[in-house]
């Protein structure tokens, strides 16, 4: 099934020799390797992966953030999904941030395409990417003061009855 030219173990070995202790944790879900790195190392890891001549992880698939409100001190998880087109292998680089101060270095200078992905992440989760050239809300209104994808903002209660059916359905 797998057509990768490089296995997840080799990939992990490469990373561990280069970063050692900084690879805090790793696991594999559905054939894709996840590595957890500290927030201040994330940019360095991404850059190293892009420039390494054997790994060639030179394609940024997307940047996502996830909010885990019960992980105290590391509520926000930022996920970089990288892809090596040549080796045809994918990798997730994950890092966690505290919700009070979700700051991480921007990778726009490594991947130009990260620009809007980071803006979207900021828009939805409030992750502040330091060094981003234009960190503004992108899909929502610029004056919106909260970050709607965080779990403390549920979609409205479906059982409420004070709404007018002509406009809202239930």
């Amino acid at each position, binding site marked *: 099934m797998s*057509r990768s030219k490089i296995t997840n173990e080799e990939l992990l070995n490469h990373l561990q020799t280069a970063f050692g202790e900084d690879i805090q944790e790793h696991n594999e*879900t*559905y054939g*894709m390797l*996840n590595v957890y790195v500290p927030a201040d190392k994330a940019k360095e890891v991404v850059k190293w992966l892009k420039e390494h001549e054997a790994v060639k992880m*030179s*394609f*940024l*698939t*997307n940047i*996502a953030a*996830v*909010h885990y409100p019960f992980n105290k001190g590391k509520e926000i998880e930022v*996920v970089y*999904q990288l892809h090596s*087109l040549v080796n*045809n292998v*994918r990798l*997730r680089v994950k890092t966690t941030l505290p919700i009070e101060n979700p700051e991480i270095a921007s990778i726009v200078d490594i*991947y*130009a*395409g*990260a*620009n*809007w*992905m980071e803006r*979207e992440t900021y828009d*939805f989760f409030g992750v502040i990417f330091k060094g981003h050239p234009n960190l503004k809300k*992108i*899909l*929502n209104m610029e004056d919106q003061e909260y970050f*709607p*994808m965080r779990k403390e*903002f*549920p*979609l409205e209660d*479906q059982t409420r009855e004070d709404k007018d059916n002509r406009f809202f359905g239930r």
Partner: protein
Amino acid sequence: MEDIRKYDNPIFKATRDTIEGEIATLNLGPTHPATHGIFQNVLKVDGEIILSSEQTVGYIHRAFEKLAERRPFNQITPITDRLNYCSSPINNIGWHLTVEKLIGAEMPKRVDYMRIIIMELARIADHLVCTSVIGVDAGALTGFTWVFQLREKIYELYEEISGSRLTTNIGRIGGFERDFTPGFHKKLQDFIKTFPKAFEEYDSLLARNRIFMDRTIGAGPISAERALEYSFTGPNLRAAGIDYDVRVMEPYCSYDDFEFDIPVGKDGDTYDRFMVRQEEIRQSFKLIKQAYENLPEGKYHADVPTFYLPPKAEVYNNMEALIYHFKIVMGEAPIPAGEVYNCVEGGNGELGYYLISDGGRTPYRLQFRRPCFIYYQAYPEMITGQSISDAVLAMSSMNVIAGELDA
């Protein structure tokens, strides 16, 4: 009216600066005939030459990712319809594949082949609209109306199997809601017979016409390196010369059973994008033909009773089936916890679903990797130094679709 004419009024001042200064600000969008959808480009122009551009998106943001956190898995399919509405079956099936990957369901060959037929039809429809709209923006309207006859046939095919034309909600987690109907077989055979001639006629109207070539060659180019930097995928990346295609790199749905080529361009300009899409239509047609000729016998859904609705007759008579029916409809199917990234080759490129499930009724987090959103940010770079006419063509050839852009 007096107020607006005062010099310190910002609106009037901007107008005055535009008239008196060398550099003008030109507002391309949100509603401009060339922005097919609602998004804005504020251009700084010197005469007809674009110096810089600033984009505003989000006019039709519908909070799909948030919405998906409140919907059971099977109710997310209609949301995906509305991403790239030119090829909604690909989005639907991509979502089903993601959930199937999560639950580890094995599909029968017939389902795979049926999916390939539907997805390639959708790709043809998507590319047809895109290439003919390049023609429209270049002023040749007739090809567009010819092509819409072909797209109409594809929509009728969707209608035969799903009951709807644009927002198809086609297929279910674990297969299809129904087998190919007799009407579908008839219309598909007719389509296979008539499509190549009609398509080549349309192609010859534009592809080698000098006026069209002059217009498109060199309009909005992007190099392979920059395209990779910007995470381009799909036809736009292939136009720049890189043959990255999810269907070949990570075959899903038995795509590796089939023979097809990956068309690539050279410079990543509008003409390349046009030609790559045109050739992809031919390749997709080849795939449909192969898949339909070799369509295996079998069931039109997988054997996953906990996720796929049982037939109605059994629901009425069989207690177990009734329980499954209720559980699936209520969204209580036993979805495992896990983290999946699955991607399909959408009309515009790698359409990814990053799904985190905590084993609950709804996804814990679902992110759509929307190719449009990602490559549209390269637009200012592509059009800087070009004329407004080029910018218009570059935009339509990138196939920016507002539904996918804003999600």
